[in-house]
């Protein structure tokens, strides 16, 4: 009996130690595959959006920090743009793919998750809330997105990248109009 208990405790300890390692970097979908899927299997050539001095204040307002890089890569065809953005949840970046069509979010999907908590944001019950959302004049999402208890920081990070992708989409769309 005591032998069995000891083994159970050992197994629990090993499982506990193994869990963070297992969730160190979860790739839900390869970013290249996400981009290709968004364009029916064949991704167009990437384009660049330079984060100019004009854009920086709005970007800072959305992220609550500077973007930290001078240009952003995106993929575009007709009314559709695709963005792969990294944003920190608690301590590590979450790589998220966002598809914008006609100024509305068509899909938002966490692609690479590196945090140990908050991975529930990957599920459709949460990400489906973003579909159809647009950006208000004050750079806020047009509808409220319900949070997930225990994943507050990850939820906030995804809301920020959703707003940022919509803002960037508006910039590149304005350029083409």
């Amino acid at each position, binding site marked *: 009996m005591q032998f069995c208990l000891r083994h159970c405790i050992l197994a629990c300890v090993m499982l506990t130690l193994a869990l963070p390692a297992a969730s160190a970097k979860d790739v839900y979908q390869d970013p290249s595959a996400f981009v290709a899927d968004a364009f029916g299997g064949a*991704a167009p*050539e990437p384009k660049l959006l330079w984060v100019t001095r004009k854009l920086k204040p709005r970007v800072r307002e959305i992220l609550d920090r500077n973007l930290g890089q*001078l*240009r952003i*890569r995106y993929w575009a065809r007709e009314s559709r743009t695709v963005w792969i953005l990294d944003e920190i949840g608690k301590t590590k*970046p979450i*790589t998220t793919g966002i598809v914008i069509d006609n100024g509305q979010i068509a899909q938002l999907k966490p*692609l690479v998750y590196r945090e140990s908590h908050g991975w529930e944001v990957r599920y459709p019950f949460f990400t489906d809330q973003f579909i159809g959302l647009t950006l208000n004049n004050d750079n806020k999402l047009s509808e409220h997105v319900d949070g997930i208890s225990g994943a507050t920081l990850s939820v906030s990070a995804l809301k920020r990248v959703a707003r940022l992708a919509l803002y960037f989409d508006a910039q590149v769309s304005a350029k083409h109009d």
Partner: protein
Amino acid sequence: MTELSPNHIERRRNGDRRKIGKRKKLILKWHRTLGLVSALFLVFLAITGVILNHGPALGLDGRTIDSPWLLDWYGMELRDEIISYRAGDHWLSWSDDHLFLDGRAVVERAAELNGVARTEDVIVVATLDTVYLLTREGDLIERLTGAALPGPIVRLGETADNQLIVETEAGRFAAKAGFMGWAPTELNALWSVPTPTSDPIRQKVLVDYRGEGLPWSRVLLDLHSGRLFGSWGPYVMDATAIILVILALTGLINWKRRR
């Protein structure tokens, strides 16, 4: 009960006065001694207290310290060895998930470097899953990951005519103009390899890294509480605070007696 003679009463009064005078002198003596002993600590407490009170306005949290001996005192050592590469006249160094350009941290959360190169106006830094494009001043132009890379990068090099090549598990790829894509290639390259970190660069990396983690507010708070002086420091400051209370009380007693 026997009545006391006027002389006797006078003597007793004089005795009481002497006793009171003695006690007064003793209190004054202690007041002076404690004042002198604690003066330095009190000035120190007052100055650090005033500065801490206005910490946010003075930006103490944002300002960091680069004094090597103070950083050593706090035990802020780099966990990893500093690994450096040369790119033209620039040094790219890596340690503790930080990427340094000429000893200055330019990227956080960077994996270990697999190669460095420099085109005419861009410094290219490769890790296994990310390529960083930096200006010569160290501003990050773009972070290429996932969809923007041909695969995990094993090494980075340049051909004789300065074409940038990366080697992945799936083969070699040449960077297209503006790093907008990668084309498979069989070209040979001169691969980027680490070089021993020079002493000046090592010093700059250490100062920059350590400075990032030690704000002035932390040091001032530790000075104010005495923690900076070791385990006995807080007790010395406690003693100073107690002395301050005694000084206030003895001062009050003296003032009352003078009235």
